[in-house]
């Protein structure tokens, strides 16, 4: 991990636009280029001190899947043969757009 400054902790909170909160390991969530930038202590975002990221574009169901992906990624990060993760068809488009937004 990078240098740990005041205000950073091992877990962060992701909040969906409909108020669902997900606590997740910082290192897992930082797979997302967007979240990494939000939490960067040198980035000047308020998220870096509160450790809470709010997403006005992403609803709870989609954000839950995103968190599932973070854990999937964490779990398999050293393996070469990774089973594909499947998503409910009706969520695919929103997930795609969320992934684009999150740079994940």
């Amino acid at each position, binding site marked *: 991990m990078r240098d740990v400054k005041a205000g950073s902790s091992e877990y962060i909170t992701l909040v969906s636009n409909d108020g669902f909160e997900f606590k997740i390991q910082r290192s897992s969530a930082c797979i997302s280029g967007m979240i990494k930038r939000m939490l960067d202590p040198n980035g000047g975002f308020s998220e870096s001190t509160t450790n809470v990221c709010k997403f006005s574009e992403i609803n709870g169901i989609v954000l839950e899947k995103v968190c599932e992906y973070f854990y999937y*990624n964490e779990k398999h990060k050293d393996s070469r043969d990774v089973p*594909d993760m499947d998503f409910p*068809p009706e969520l695919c488009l929103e997930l*795609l*757009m969320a992934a684009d937004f999150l740079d994940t």
Partner: protein
Amino acid sequence: MALPSSPPLLEEENDLPIATTFLPLGSGSGISFGALQRKRQYADYDSLSSDPVFSDTTEDDEAQDAERPRRKKVVRGPWWHVGKGTAHDLRRGMAKKEGFRNADSGVWMGSDVSESSDSMLSSRQRMQELAVEGQVEDAVPARAIPEAETYASRIIQTCLDRGEEAVDLSDLALRSLSDSTVRPLHQLIKSSFTTFTHAPSEDEFSPLTPSLTLILSRNRLASLPAELFNLSNITCLSLRNNELDELPSAIVRLTRLTELNVSGNNIQYLPWELLDLMQGGERQILVRPNPLLQPTDLDEPYPLPSFSSTQVSSIDESQASSTRAKLDEGLRGELELRLKLGRTLKAQQMQAAMNEDDRPARNEELIYLASSHIRWLGVDGSPLRRARGTPPHDDDWPATMNPTAHAPTASATTHIPSLFELALRSLQATHNLADFLEPATAAEFEISSAVASAMHRAARNSAGTGNENCSCCGKYFIISRAEWVEYWFNGSASQQELDANSVLPFLRRVCSWGCAKVSEPGTFRC
């Protein structure tokens, strides 16, 4: 039950699935072969038997939709004309989305919406049922086949009638060639099969396997129909003197090819997969002339390098020559050395193999020389925002000593597909992407241009030859995460020195940053 028109390849063992299109006649048992593949084959031949030329109505596609994922779909005609049935999915997706947005009470409220989408679907089905007769014309007004192609189609029909295996479509001023025009070539030996009431045995099969020669030279083709790469019985393919910008990687599916001519096109680099066809040297593959990329300037003769001279020269000429020239000279020396390294390693392996079999050593060599810089791409396939100080991409993909310079971060070694890729694949497998790309729908869903272009690619893959294979791990992908060009020596073993005519560029595309690994110096194929 339609009969297969492409017999299996008897000689080959490690073919890609597409080449092993053996279909058991009458029963679906006994062959360990992907069910998806089988369905597509059936559907293809069904459509053939009804109407060979204008077979790209959408009924087949719709019939298949329920049975298998969309990913494997071979769509006939441009993707934007296909899959009218899936507006239903789209509406249902929207209904779900609405339902979720209104889900404060915790109860899904979408019943009104789902009802209306059902009635919409049924009225659509009814319309299609009513319009079955006129559908070909109605559905594809934009696809009036140009005259040249009509002529090509007639030639193909004549060859089929006469059972001729050489199909000469040269000099027709063809600007395009559609899937439906070449598809009848699957039938080439179909008549011979009709007397069989059982699955032909291998002995019965082999004399019936046609060796298709397809001459498309001296036309104006800028692209090739995907269906061409399903004609696994092509043994000789000439694309000479056309306007092709690239040779599709699907060329590797034509495993029976013995002759391939792509000279006289606008090809700058070859697909990585062509190396597979080139190795072994049994095939005659002509790629020159083409505006092929060069690793560095190889036109000037190079003073035969020795280890000392390259090292000394970098000191001697420290201020006399430009940095670029000096770099090139060092690079040129490095290329020559790598050629020798590859030859040495190859000789060692040949020596070891010689004891086991007495194959005569081939004169033509394939030895890896160097790579360009790797281009790292983001989750949506766009170039990464580049750190300060890194040089801009060079369209000429020049070779470099350090291809992995400017790698994104040290942690970028993962082989795991991005969430973006996974979601896109799911979407491709379950929806008709063309629906989302209609301007009104795209606006409604607020689809960004980056997402839209990724969806375009996914849709194009579905309509064409399918998703690509990673040139490193072999897995399928839609969005490539890194690309580079590798330069390989391809010349005779007696050639002492590199020249512009003995080096070939191959484009590699990979599924993940972890797969972005250039070949090791000394790598060779034989």
